[in-house]
């Protein structure tokens, strides 16, 4: 079979699988960027000992545990504490002063994965004296990553990298104050979780659930196609208070978005935006 005919058949198989997953389980991956999605589907095909995407379709529609495994493949993102330290430094410098003017803060960390970014935000807010009057809503599509996020247990071997990131991000204490080491693992200071709510939320299909002063959603929408990105931007716009802050990943932009006009740029390099006042 020539390569282009194979590719066409595969595109049909992927569409059918995504349609089936959507109808049966409610997870909507139909507008995910295809090249990456396709790779992750094939990874699951092989991991299940199968040979085709159609075979995977049969497996996940008949076996919920296979769906859960697929969901992990499709939703887990690589993350780390204080990833891109310059972003956190900029947040401290350009966003925190405005946040001090609010008596109470709601922050949405959308697509929090296993929680590293959420705890990084919590640490930053504690150091500037704002954590006590903040509630961080950390959401992800995937319940099992949320469970590990809530535990806050990470490989001890990662702590050196995180310490370097923390210092580069302008951390003012010793990073080891924020975790307790036991055997090969590090548990994040439990007091940081008091102001964090971990909850399932699907950016593709769920609506806004509150009004926020800050939304942080970094390197999540890069897995979406442009149309879906535009829709999620709209969801964020509708979920922000006037002058609310939206923070994206380093290589993401609002520039091509239908709602770009509703935001000012706070820090172009770090992709921090502020919603207009009205």
């Amino acid at each position, binding site marked *: 079979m020539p*390569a*282009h005919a194979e*590719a066409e058949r595969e595109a049909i198989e992927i569409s059918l699988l995504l349609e089936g997953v959507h109808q049966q389980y409610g997870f909507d991956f139909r507008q995910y*960027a*295809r*090249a*990456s999605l396709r790779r992750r589907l094939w990874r699951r095909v092989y991991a299940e000992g199968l040979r085709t995407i159609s075979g995977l379709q049969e497996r996940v529609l008949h076996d919920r545990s296979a769906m859960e495994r697929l969901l992990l493949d499709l939703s887990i*993102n*690589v993350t780390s504490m204080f990833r891109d330290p310059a972003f956190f430094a900029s947040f401290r410098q350009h966003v925190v002063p405005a946040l001090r003017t609010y008596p109470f803060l709601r922050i949405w960390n959308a697509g929090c994965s296993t929680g590293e970014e959420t705890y990084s935000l919590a640490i930053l807010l504690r150091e500037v004296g704002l954590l006590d009057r903040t509630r961080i809503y950390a959401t992800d599509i995937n319940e099992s990553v949320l469970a590990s996020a809530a535990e806050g247990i990470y490989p001890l071997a990662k702590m050196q990298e995180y310490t370097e990131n923390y210092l580069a991000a302008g951390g003012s204490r010793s990073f080891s104050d924020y975790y307790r080491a036991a055997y090969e693992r590090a548990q994040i200071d439990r007091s940081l979780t008091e102001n964090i709510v971990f909850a399932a939320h699907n950016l593709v299909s769920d609506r806004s659930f509150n009004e926020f002063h800050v939304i942080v959603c970094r*390197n999540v*929408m*890069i*897995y979406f196609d*442009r149309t879906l*990105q535009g829709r999620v931007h709209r969801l964020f716009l509708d979920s922000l208070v006037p002058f609310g802050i939206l923070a994206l*990943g*380093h*290589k*993401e*932009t609002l520039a*091509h978005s239908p709602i770009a006009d509703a935001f000012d740029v706070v820090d172009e390099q770090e992709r921090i935006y502020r919603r207009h006042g009205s």
Partner: protein
Amino acid sequence: MTSGFSPDGVDLVVVGASWGGVDAAMQVLRELPAPLPVPVLLVLHRSRTSERALLERVIERDCGHPARELGDKDDLTAGTIHLAPPDYHVLVEGGSVSLTVEDPVNHSRPSVDLAFETAAEDHAERLVAVLLSGLGRDGAHGIEVVHRHGGRTLVQDPAEAERPDMPQAAIDTGCVDEVATLRGIGLRLRELLEGGGR
């Protein structure tokens, strides 16, 4: 959307090299006709702390083509050398790119393999893939995929390469159309982009 075709039907050039391959890449890019009739995607292994804007400026100055670091969903436009940002994979689809932060492939992010493979799936026989000096074997599998989709594969002569590993691994796949010096690759690309190459 990709804009522009060469007379030989090439509509995308992807160049892969490791961090040490930056000089090699510049020697090749310098030979290309200006304005570039097709987009060029340059995937270099480099550290996430490397001075980002600097590489763009150096390429613009030394190669005479506009250079820009890619953002997510940016179009691959003719006339420009598009740089893979450090610490992201670049996946080509529909004439634009998606960036991902999935695990490194062959210890590399960006992965030359991923860029070659997705470009091959998107551009098939209209793609030219170029692999230059580098340690490890990133790019070899991608070369196979490009070849299978009918694209053209050019690889730097390992005898000339500062680091022969990546070119040699690609050659060992048996899927390389032409092995040449940097100057030879540059001239060949010029032919392919200006017409009369096939």
